């Protein structure tokens, strides 16, 4: 860890204004940031601790949406009655992540902003376009089994987005509220995370100095059931090899509403819109689900060690759809 200046402002306004230089970072739970600072991978010169900001509430908006403060912990969000009742996919996704102690510290804003688990990024020395633009990508021809993607990759970077929470949010539909030097704005959740493309170091839509204040979930879909299925080597405390968060409403044995999002397989929380389309109006069933899964992975590109994620991801989609409709 290197020396940095430290502030702990009390208001959003002060937090946004406190920013001095280019390498400023907000500190929330610290489970990503402090980790990477100790590994010398993230080197902020200024750390702005946001834990005193009044952003720790979950509340229902007038139009039936759910507004989650950026500092709400992963544990609190998973246990929140609104979330458990109306967004089980989110509660399940959160509880499948990390460990109890990490979830107690981890915040909603921090989770949205968590960094990739690619070991070449984290080791601080291997060529990595994300950490050191232009240095190359060690993973493409290296060890890329567990935490690398098959969807949305580029020749510059193939690291998977690691979050479970974000997969559920992508399925539900959400808006990210941000507050920055030039005021407040809203970002559609699906536009928040960015594909690596030619610029893998650009990971999200925040402008310099912008603070996430809330994530607002879309109102729950009528009559829908949802579930999250995370597949991994061990039973707990591992990032997804492949996961699937689905929301489905069936009426008269026809699928009326379908949302499919996938984790562990994409370079961002991955919505499978075409796969959703293929389900609409169909009777729920293995064959229909299986076709949707194929569509979801149509453009998947396997690498030396992670080709299995394509069939595994399909299995996650199929089984979670079966669970949500049975």
């Amino acid at each position, binding site marked *: 860890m290197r020396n940095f200046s430290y502030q702990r402002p009390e208001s959003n306004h002060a937090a946004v204004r406190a920013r001095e230089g280019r390498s400023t970072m907000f500190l929330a739970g610290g489970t990503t940031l402090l980790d990477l600072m100790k590994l010398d991978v993230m080197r902020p010169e200024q750390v702005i601790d946001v834990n005193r900001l009044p952003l720790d509430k979950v509340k229902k908006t007038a139009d039936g949406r759910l507004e989650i403060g950026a500092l709400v912990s992963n544990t609190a969000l998973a246990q929140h009655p609104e979330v458990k009742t109306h967004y089980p996919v989110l509660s399940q996704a959160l509880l499948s992540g990390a460990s109890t102690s990490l979830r107690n510290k981890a915040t909603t804003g921090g989770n949205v902003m968590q960094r990739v688990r690619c070991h070449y990024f984290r080791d601080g020395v291997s060529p990595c376009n994300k950490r050191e633009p232009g240095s190359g990508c060690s993973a493409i021809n290296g060890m890329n089994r567990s935490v690398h993607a098959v969807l949305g990759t580029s020749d510059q970077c193939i690291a998977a987005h690691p979050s479970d929470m974000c997969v559920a949010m992508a399925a539900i539909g959400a808006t990210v509220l941000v507050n920055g030097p030039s005021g407040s704005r809203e970002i559609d959740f699906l536009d928040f995370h960015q594909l690596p493309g030619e610029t893998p170091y650009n990971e999200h839509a925040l402008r310099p100095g912008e603070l996430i204040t809330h994530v607002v979930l879309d109102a729950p879909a009528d009559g829908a059931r949802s579930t999250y299925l995370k*597949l991994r080597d*061990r039973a707990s405390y591992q990032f997804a090899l492949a996961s699937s968060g689905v929301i489905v409403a069936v009426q008269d044995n026809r699928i009326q509403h379908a949302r499919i999002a996938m984790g562990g397989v994409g370079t961002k929380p991955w919505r499978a819109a075409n796969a959703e389309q293929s389900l609409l109006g169909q009777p729920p069933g293995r064959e229909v689900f299986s076709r949707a899964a194929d569509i979801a992975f149509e453009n998947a590109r396997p690498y030396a060690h992670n080709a299995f994620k394509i069939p595994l991801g399909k*299995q996650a989609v199929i089984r979670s759809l079966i669970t949500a409709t049975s």
Partner: protein
Amino acid sequence: MSESNQRYIGQARPRIDGPKKLSGEARYAADHHLPDMTYAYGVFSTIASGRINDIDTSAAEAMPGVIDIFHHDRFPSLHRSPDNFANGTKVDEPRLPFEDDRIYYAGQFVAMVVAESFEQARAAAYEVQVSYRPDTPITRLEEALEQHKPTPDEGSRHERGNPDSAWKKAPQRIEAVYNTAMETHNPMEMHASTAAWDGQSGRLVLYESTQGVVFTRNTIARMFGLLQDKVEVKAPFIGSGFGGKLFVWPHAVAACAATRSLGRPVQLMVPRAQMFTTTGHRPATRQTLKLATDADGRLQAVIHDSVNSTSMLADVPELCGRCTKSLYACDNLRVSHATVPMNCGTPTAMRAPGAAPGLFALESAMDEMAEAVGMDPVAFRLRNYTERDGSQDLPFSSIHLKQALEEGARRFGWEKRTAKPGSMRDGDEILGWGVAACNWEALKVDAKAQVTLQADDRVLVSCATQDIGTGTYTVIAQGAAEALGVPIESIDVELGDSRYIYGPLSGGSWVTASILPAVAQAARAAVEELKGYAIARGGPFESRKKDDLSFENGALGVKGGEMLSVAEILQARRLANAVGEASTSGELGKAYSYRSFGAHFVEVRWDPGISRLRVSHVLSAIDVGKVVNPRTAANQVEGAVAMGLGMALFEHTEFDQASGLPVNNDYAEYLVPSHADFPDMEVMFLHYPDYNFTSEGARGVGEIGTTGLAGAVANAIYHATGKRIRDIPIRLEQLMVDDLAATG
């Protein structure tokens, strides 16, 4: 001693050191903060092979708090350790840290910054600029085998009969190659040294996380050219070692050198990432098994040829055939071992070295052979059961493998198993049941103990062995309480200090068997000394002879007459204590072969629709002689089973092929079983004391549970999926069903 009267030995007792560990009172190597202490942090090689071109420390030196920076051009000249087990100077890696500019593995110490605080040292370490002249590293066993001819380990080779021709002639035979991955010990407590040199007295004190305070003292003394009594090594508590802390690693040497150079105490912790490089590992193995039977399933030939990866610095053979040579009846048999070097740190013993990977291969092969001859796996093992160790042509001192297999099978419900792979279903899941034998040498080494009866009626037992988390404190207290007939609550045990009377290295599962006889003898010697005080002039039994007196329930007296407490006697003579010492030999009778046995029964659940494999039930029937403390012993078996599960399914220390840098060097990415992975677990001790082994009848229990487990898991997986996987860890992609439509 007749068993039924035993009040402490054989009883399930909680750990006497438990409260200290729970409350944080137990201090580990890096918990010691000495006055005026400095902190060191390593700079570790980021190439796996080559040379250091240049080390530029100028920026680091200018950082706040930096005191000194060591590297190969700036390090005191030391001596290598004689590296001799017999005189307690064995090391794993003979090369000293900073010996020269050569790089043999990624993560090798290339420099070390000493600063006023840990954070300052670490920050400065990041500023040390090292440039290299890299060579292409060898990072995998396959690659090493392509580039080097393996070096045979002649000493461990065993051959009897004519295995090759017997194999060729036999009516039923199999041949298969098994691969096991490199694994890292991963104890919770990282390696750490807190070293303090006192220039005036020329003494070195070292708090080290070690499984051997005596070995460490001897080794460090040799390296620094000091007399043994000028070095004190302390490890009252260690957060486990699993074999990775048996011998001295470079960090300890570096810390001692730094404190001697600077004249201030130095603390050096090995960061978690470097626990995967510079402090040992279980090497990767490739094992070729050839088994043959007659038409009735009797083994006619067993050939087990094994080669393992080692470092560029030392040949460390992993003795995979150490159990194969005697576990089953077979007249034509060979086991052989060889090593091949690659660019990794030096391998070392890891819980059940040799036996764990070796029995994975043998017990997988036994299953394959059973299938080839059309026999049930339990029945096939029983058919080849023997009570003689064929490698030594001696009877086993005590063997209950048969009972382990039979009673274990009964308890597990093995008769309900249907043989056809994939034939046992439960909803979306397919069950697989597998069995494997476990096996480990029963070892014993020289030991000493000191028992002090004190004037406050407490008893102190001390010895320079260690409790590495296995329950040694508790077992020693039980032994002393038993020998003296006093409540266990009145016993204090002090271990882990090289100034105490000699104690054994905590390894090989030999501590309990070795130390208990010494403790019992020392207790008797202390009572004798006490009797001497009691009958001497001014003593309470002045007119009596020693033989008139007996010691019962902590009191001394004439049978039927007045009994006086230890305190009363010592106070009468104004003495502080009565001290007894004993020394027992590790030598074992030559009439037997001494080994422990057991059997694991494993149930896996395979959900092909989501490619999910979980181990749901393990029953381990364990034959380790007398069980001194069923509670700590069961805990050892459970932990060993967890480690076996890790070996079977998760653990694999991986390196980038091009750079040779480790890629999963933390607790998030190097997978070990989590609590949620731990199955329903039953430990079944068979309780047959082995009095041919020692008077206590107890063989060790620390390692045996890890042996065979991976084989039982692989066999259960085969039974569930029909896929015989010969490479561990077994991963879901090896098991996936390709036809999704069939399974979804």
